[in-house]
């Protein structure tokens, strides 16, 4: 399936993608700012995400909470999210409200700072601290993302530090940090605006010109440090975390090719052969046959800079130690390297991936987000229409080549959670790791 795509760029650098579809009277607006936790400075971990919260706190012409209320009153849905490389803001509304949404987004891109106060910052800081408690500190395995990033990326690398941030760094964030982050990164030339759904292209273009056209270009953002990494870790990495969990859980990560590269698609298919749904190798072997795992899956982070990660995520059955789980997963990965992947396995994986892509494209919000993603990372939203073909071009031999190059012992990083009560299990694993 292909969706229609039109693009243009305003004089101030704002890149716009439009995709019409009049099957329902709804329209999605999506903004990607090319800034994420990777752009944070030392001592300010978590700031990109805290800043995302501040964008809902009003701007020069929009009051506190008014952004949410205006869109909900229109019958729309909205949110924002922060990731290592980008921050996005998105809403889907009845199509007659498009212009109001563009106005709201433009007001916070152009005139955020007059709406900022110390009180708002203090309040959102506390909300974010509660978000950290909820999603990380009071949730079993909740620290996995920050631990895995720290384990897999070198200390100086922009992907190394915590996305949600430390409590201390969150406490240290000041109003001046908000202002300088805004001036540096929230500029039209560092953003992509996508609109998908029911709209009139000429009217949309006129509204975009009217509301975004006079926002000045930014001063230019500081370049990220060199993010290139060798293709493998070059060593076996392992971290064992005794924690308040009931069952051992393993995150086994492999450094893998960056999102969008030819090799990325082979890596993604390899991940699906290993861990996508019940017909995958890991599910069949560890959940169904050997009954060593309770759940198992595999996924990629989809990082576009430096290096991506392919991750296997497995939860042990009761009575199975972390060491046994890790050993069993490792055995299946070894088997994949030793026995060739079959064409049938690749077909199953690609059929599932293709179906997921087509399914997702039913939603206007999803189409707009994908357009922003490819425009932000590659300057070419038309790549959205090539995804299925690129997956279909992956051969069993390409998956084998990926497995040979990237799934060996020297490119494996284990993050293994074990129940704190079972200290002996952790000791066993540590003993094995140092043996």
């Amino acid at each position, binding site marked *: 399936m292909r969706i229609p795509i039109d693009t243009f760029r305003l004089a101030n650098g704002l890149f716009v993608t439009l995709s019409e579809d009049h099957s329902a009277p709804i329209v999605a607006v999506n903004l990607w700012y090319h800034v994420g936790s990777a752009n944070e400075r030392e001592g300010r971990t978590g700031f990109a995400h805290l800043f995302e919260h501040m964008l809902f706190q009003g701007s020069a012409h929009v009051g506190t909470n008014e952004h949410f209320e205006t869109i909900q009153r229109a019958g729309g849905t909205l949110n924002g999210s922060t990731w290592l490389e980008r921050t996005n803001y998105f809403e889907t509304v009845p199509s007659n409200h498009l212009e109001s949404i563009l106005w709201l987004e433009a007001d916070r891109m152009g005139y955020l700072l007059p709406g900022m106060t110390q009180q708002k910052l203090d309040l959102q800081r506390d909300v974010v601290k509660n978000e950290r*408690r*909820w999603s990380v*500190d009071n949730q*079993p395995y909740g620290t996995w993302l920050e631990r895995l990033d720290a384990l897999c990326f070198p200390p100086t690398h922009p992907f190394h530090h915590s996305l949600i941030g430390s409590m201390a760094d969150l406490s240290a964030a000041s109003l001046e940090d908000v202002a300088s982050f805004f001036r540096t990164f929230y500029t039209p030339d560092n953003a992509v605006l996508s609109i998908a759904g029911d709209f009139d292209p000429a009217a949309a273009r006129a509204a975009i010109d009217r509301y975004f056209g006079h926002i000045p270009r930014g001063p230019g953002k500081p370049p990220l440090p060199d993010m290139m990494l060798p293709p493998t870790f070059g060593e076996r990495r392992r971290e064992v975390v005794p924690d308040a969990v009931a069952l051992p859980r393993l995150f086994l990560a492999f450094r893998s090719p960056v999102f969008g590269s030819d090799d990325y698609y082979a890596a993604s298919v390899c991940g699906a052969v290993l861990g996508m749904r019940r*017909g995958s190798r890991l599910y069949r072997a560890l959940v169904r046959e050997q009954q060593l795992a309770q759940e198992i899956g595999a996924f990629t982070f989809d990082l576009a800079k430096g290096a991506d990660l392919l991750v296997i995520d497995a939860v042990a059955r009761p009575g199975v130690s972390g060491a046994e789980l890790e050993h069993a997963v490792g055995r299946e990965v070894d088997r994949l390297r030793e026995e060739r992947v079959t064409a049938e396995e690749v077909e199953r994986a690609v059929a599932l991936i293709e179906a997921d892509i087509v399914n997702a494209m039913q939603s206007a919000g999803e189409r707009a987000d994908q357009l922003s993603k490819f425009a932000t990372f590659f300057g070419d939203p038309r790549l959205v229409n090539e995804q299925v073909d690129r997956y279909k071009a992956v051969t069993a031999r390409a998956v084998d080549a990926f497995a040979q190059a990237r799934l060996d012992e020297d490119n494996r990083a284990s993050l293994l959670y074990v129940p704190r009560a079972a200290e002996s299990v952790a000791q066993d694993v540590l003993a094995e790791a140092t043996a």
Partner: protein
Amino acid sequence: MSTASFATRPLPGEPRPYAFPRFERRTLSNGITLVVAPVHRLPIVTVIAVTDAGSVADPLGREGLASLVAAMLAEGTASMDGEMLALRFERLGTSFSAYADWDVGVASMTVTRSHLADALALFAETLTAPSFPARELERLKAERLAELLQLRTEPRGLADEMMAHFVYAPESRFARPMAGGAAAVEAITARDVGELYTARYRAGGTTIVMAGDVSTDDALALLEESFGVWGGSAPAPIAVVDAPSPGARTVHVVTKADAPQSEIRVAHVGIPRIHPDYFRVTVMNAVLGGLFSSRINLNLRERNAYTYGARSEFDWRRAAGPFVVSTAVASEATAAATREILAEIDRMRSEPITEEELTLATSYMSGVFPIRYETTAAIATALANLVVYGLDDSYFDTYRANIESVTTTDVLEAAQRHLHPERLRIVVIGDPAEVAGPLAALDAGPVSLYDAEGSPLGS
């Protein structure tokens, strides 16, 4: 640079009309009801089969049986084992999913039009000729026991389970977990599975919904071919006990030592899905805690920063599901947050909401309606619910008018009739050392303490 263009906001244009997709009902020769919504935007079809085999059908002491029966549909048939079934579905680019909710068993898949006939043949085989292999039953039981073990360290899920336990009368099925507790699951045998399947998975008690790139005639022909051999009349309806646990307002603290946050549930038994006050209650709940801009969320999150989020909901079932306020707050804010929740519930009952609050809720619910039905899966799910609850076929066409007709007086009366502060159960998963004292000082009801497994420790 001028900000003049921002001084006046753009006004919305004329809304474009929207209608929920047209759908038709048919009956197969063996009694299966078919509902088809032809939507030809993309070459995909969602298929959902609902059978009268929800968890309310679980026998006493075998809670979790209906969930296991649904899950076992994917574990083997007369001609294929579970692994082969999964592979066959997945090579067609689809996955078969089956589960039981309180009211019905639900089997579903979304598949491209070109694979629909092949996928339907597999789909029909899982429902009409499951083999229930003993080895897979033991495995699924063990996986459920592991899930229960995980729940002890997972405060959100534990809070939901404990809430149901304290809200409903002990004899209510709703007081126990949908997928069953450890003793009940361990007791389930292959014979139980076979008996529930035979009693409740029957053509006459099954509706199949198809939404997407298929015509009604094609759907009917495909189903006659794949499901034609199945038989059985509709099973008898089940009498459900949805009575509340007796007594006035109480506070229950379940121990999670050193928890940095408390998971809070404030709940009582609500009303059944089919109720004359449904629209009034839905709008009332939106204002109270259903929206981001609701009273409870603005109070707890945006005014007091106690939490990342707080919400309220009526959990709709054929019988009366719970009304629940849910949030997680910093441990030291537990009593204060509880006090604010109780105050918001009281305020809802003591004074009318403003016209602005009313229109925020009604214009949101009316406006968001077409956004909810973007996908074939969402359309099919909506139609399945129509069947499960026995709603009128005009339900979707009159939904927006029904929402918009609710008044501030309706909301006040709905709050007075359906919010019951005096019989709330306040359930906290947290650190008793930190929260028990302040909760007792709140005077919201007697405070009882429980260990991490939910066994009473005293007051």
